[in-house]
């Protein structure tokens, strides 16, 4: 039964991937990418990696799709025809894919009892010590927040750095503006609304999707 589920999900992944390649409509490409993420999340669930599946569903299928749509509202919905011939990229992709498939031959079989991961001292220590050392039933949380606390702090900082980068690159929207108020004789900070072009109240109430 598990094999059937795995094969079905992997086939769906392949179909979604090929469909993304074929379509010139970027809206369907974004929707298919969301479906791809959701199927990948289901696949992670069958591999018992529920935390990863959760993140994939929330970030990959959820927020990413919304951000892609926000971008499409700015750049348009149709992909331009490529100017070059697809031969060279095809060769590169085929060679890379072949190398990756060749690499999987060295991987230990999934779920086998004598896999190296079950034999490592680190894994054994987490499994044996974390219940009374940390006392948190979900071992993923113990590792993420305590044993690997430095890593997680780095990740949080990277996410913050991403915000700084995005704001530096594209935020032309709400920005604080110092305005001199002659009546109160002081400088005020104003956050201008990005949807109204200086005029007030005339804008539509619809969000980013209107171009």
């Amino acid at each position: 039964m598990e094999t059937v589920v795995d094969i079905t999900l992997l086939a769906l992944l392949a179909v979604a991937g090929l469909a993304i390649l074929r379509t010139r409509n970027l809206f369907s490409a974004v929707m298919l990418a969301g479906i791809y993420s959701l199927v990948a999340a289901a696949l992670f669930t069958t591999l018992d990696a529920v935390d990863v599946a959760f993140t994939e569903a929330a970030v990959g299928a959820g927020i990413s799709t919304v951000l892609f749509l926000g971008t499409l509202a700015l750049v348009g919905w149709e992909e331009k025809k490529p100017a070059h011939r697809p031969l060279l990229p095809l060769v590169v992709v085929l060679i890379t894919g072949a190398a990756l498939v060749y690499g999987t031959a060295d991987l230990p079989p999934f779920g086998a009892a004598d896999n190296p991961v079950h034999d490592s001292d680190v894994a054994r220590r987490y499994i044996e010590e974390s219940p009374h050392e940390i006392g948190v039933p979900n071992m993923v949380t113990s590792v993420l927040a305590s044993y690997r606390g430095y890593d997680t702090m780095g990740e949080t900082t990277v996410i913050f750095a991403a915000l700084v980068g995005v704001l530096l690159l594209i935020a032309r929207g709400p920005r604080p503006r110092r305005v001199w108020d002659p009546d109160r004789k002081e400088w005020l900070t104003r956050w201008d609304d990005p949807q109204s072009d200086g005029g007030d109240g005339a804008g539509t109430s619809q969000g980013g999707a209107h171009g």
Partner: protein
Amino acid sequence: MDDQVILRMAAKWLIPFILIFALYVQFHGDYGPGGGFQAGVIFAAGFVLHSLVFGLKDTLRVLPPWVAYACGALGVVLYAGVGVVTMALGAEYLNYNVLSYDPEHGQHYGILLVELGVLITVFGVMLGVYYAFAGRRRLDG
């Protein structure tokens, strides 16, 4: 979308549950799948849904961009601050054992606080990035 009555009503009912679900994912992370990253994304998704249905203008009034930006920084400060506190209490950086009367309780408090930091940062960043994209106009439009 002023005329989409069903959509507006459904969103109005859904948003509180999305936010509550985010908090459940956050605080249930010790026992099941979940944690700050997922909860932050889900919490931000509640506000994204609000802006998709009621318009960006209304969402910006509910939660102005500077709040999102401040959250993005605040979470990192909270996370790093826990480390500073543990150092002040005489242990290594981010060693939560000293946060309470016994190591196991200290670990619980520490994990709770740093996960809260992750939640706040991820929420602020996701919403800030969304605002940046949605608030921009088409160059040729």
